[in-house]
């Protein structure tokens, strides 16, 4: 009995505490803290700078916490450009952009994994090749296409070129390949069609990857700057990322406090979305782990 307990403990890696154990634990926590610091420090700096005046931002040695928080930076930033309109535009373009991208990716990945057809590998190689092309290269051809369609300054002009992204299709395909074929065959025997298989079997089994793809897509669309800048000219069609640019001074004479305040309210929804969805990623990952 004692022996059994001991082996179980060993299995779970929680041996009775020894100094080596403490040392290794301390080391792990130190690493963890360091990693957290690397990620959190810029965020902390953004928030703290959003409450500072210019002198405190430039001050050396560094002022970590503003002596007198300048809450006025927030309304100043909000009023510097029509941010309410930018918010609406960003929500619209991100929502439809992400929706189209993920639906597209799921269908593509499903076809590439579960449908037998000639030239499948060739198509996959083309997809991989598309993954290697930097976005900047496609900007001019995309612009010419959108302009000739008369879609400058329109939502479809902002959204459509980003509606198919090779990366999400690639990500989903790689995961679909790992799904156990038994479950899929069982579903097929039950008479499920392709859409049914995708919706009721493949996607629920792929939730963590799906959420990951969704998040990556949201962040990319929310932050996209160059394309919306190029394809829109008018203030009322601009998005949040360009709104931030409105606050910059051409000669580098920037009011960083106000810019950081705007940065805070521009990224806040994405951060909130991440906090809300991350449990899906984690629970999904552990669900896979226990299956063994």
């Amino acid at each position, binding site marked *: 009995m004692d022996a059994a307990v001991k082996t179980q403990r060993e299995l779970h890696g929680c041996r009775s505490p020894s100094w080596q154990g403490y040392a290794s634990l301390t080391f792990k926590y130190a690493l963890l803290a360091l990693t957290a610091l690397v990620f959190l420090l810029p965020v902390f700096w953004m928030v703290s700078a959003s409450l500072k005046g210019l002198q405190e931002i430039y001050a050396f040695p560094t002022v970590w916490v503003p002596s007198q928080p300048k809450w006025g930076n927030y309304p100043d930033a909000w009023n510097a450009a029509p941010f309410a309109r930018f918010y609406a535009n960003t929500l619209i373009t991100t929502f439809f952009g992400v929706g189209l991208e993920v639906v597209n990716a799921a269908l593509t990945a499903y076809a590439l994994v579960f449908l037998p057809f000639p030239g499948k590998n060739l198509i996959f190689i083309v997809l991989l090749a598309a993954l290697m092309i930097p976005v900047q290269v496609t900007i001019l051809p995309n612009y010419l296409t959108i302009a000739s369609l008369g879609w400058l300054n329109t939502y479809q002009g902002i959204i459509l070129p980003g509606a198919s992204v090779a990366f999400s299709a690639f990500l989903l395909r790689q995961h679909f390949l790992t799904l156990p074929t038994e479950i899929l065959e069982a579903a097929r025997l039950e008479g499920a069609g392709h859409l049914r298989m995708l919706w009721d079997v493949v996607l629920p089994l792929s939730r963590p990857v799906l959420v990951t793809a969704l998040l990556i897509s949201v962040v990319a669309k929310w932050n996209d700057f160059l394309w919306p800048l190029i394809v829109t000219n*008018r203030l009322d069609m601009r998005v949040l990322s360009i709104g931030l640019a409105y606050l910059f001074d051409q000669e580098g004479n920037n009011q960083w406090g106000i810019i950081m305040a705007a940065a805070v309210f521009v990224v806040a929804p994405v951060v909130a979305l991440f906090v809300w969805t991350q449990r899906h990623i984690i629970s999904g990952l552990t669900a896979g782990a226990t299956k063994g």
Partner: protein
Amino acid sequence: MDRRRFLIRSGGAVGSLILIACGGTSGGSVQQPQPTGAAGKAAQGKTRVVYWSSWGGASGKALQKLVDDFNASQKEIFVENQYQGTYEETAQKLAAALAARQVPDMASMSEVTWNKFYLNGSLQNMTDYFKSANMDPKTYVSSLIEEGTKNGDVWWVPFARSTPLFYYNRDMFKKAGLPDRGPKTWDELREWGKDLMGKGGAKKVFAFTDAKNYNAWHFQGNVWQWGGAYSNEEFDMLIDEGGAVEAGEWLRKFVHEDKMGYMAEDQSIDFGNGICATTQQSTGSLGGIVEAAKFEVGTAMLPEMKKFGCPTGGAGLGIMAAAPDERKQAAFEFIKFLAKPENVTYWSKETGYMPVTNSARESAEMQAYFKENPNFKVAVEQLPKTQPQDSARRLVPNGDQTIGTGLERILANNEPASQVFKGVAQQLESDAQDIKEQVEEKQARRLRTA
């Protein structure tokens, strides 16, 4: 978020886009539609001018006020100000718009980007507009309007111009027992160096900066001061000989032997924190530097060596050749409005850019402003002595960074200037081939039509 780094990177993309766009334009005689987007109610029944600008922040607001004032001042024309990002981003959009044949009627272009649009024939010759509007190009400060004038024709008018300026920490100068003025020559600054780092309490005497912070713009002045040049107008590279090498060597010794100079990532921040006693930065940064500094800021004209030398920077306005005549005429009306003394003064006071017309500089309002801001007055007094930059930085693709990274090797690695600039000159020469052909072609075409 490092905007300057982004600027440089996007600058590289601009170059290639502009090259693509060049192939697509057909001399600019074809009329092109305005970028889509219905005109608002305010524009109904008026000639609508679409203007692509590059100013955000406080400057963006000041510009919008000028546009609103213009629209309210008359009934025939409606100017629509559309912000398009930095100078580089605006140029990139303009190149794409030319290729798609959806151009604005006028645009802001930096002292670097306008050359490319001039060379590919996208800009409108404004000489006839000046004549018919009874306006003399000499209204503008001569060194500035001459930069946009080629063979007697005006293509690009000054609007938001800046120059490098010498900044010094007056408190440190006082403590060091030095006169309250900038050094007359670089050697004088070097003589003062001991006192500044001793009694003055400065860690370093002077902060240079790095390539992504446009050190090649600042060094352009040094090269001229030592009697050299980056290149001539025929694209012969001169950076590896004479004054340019001497200037580079002086910098190297000042940094590595005298230990008085150094390369700062952002010289404004170091200067504001009292790390260096003096530095050189754009006149456009004056407001920000004064606001961030905890001491009395002094400004002076750039120190001389064999002679005075100072480049211009910033942006001007161009009219697109492809726009219909009616709208080009209307766009010029707006340019004329911007050149009125009261508008030049307003823009200059709000943004810190140099007053670009002589009448504005002499206006009572500007004179009163000088009294309140003697530092700004110094910047304006230096203006008539400035000159356009050499072709190597203005026209050669990536020339700014090629020279700038060479300078970094001198300032940071202590490599001899003659050796570094030899490599830089070779690089510039090979990068200049395309643009050289373009310039020659342009000249040949002009001779044929003349």
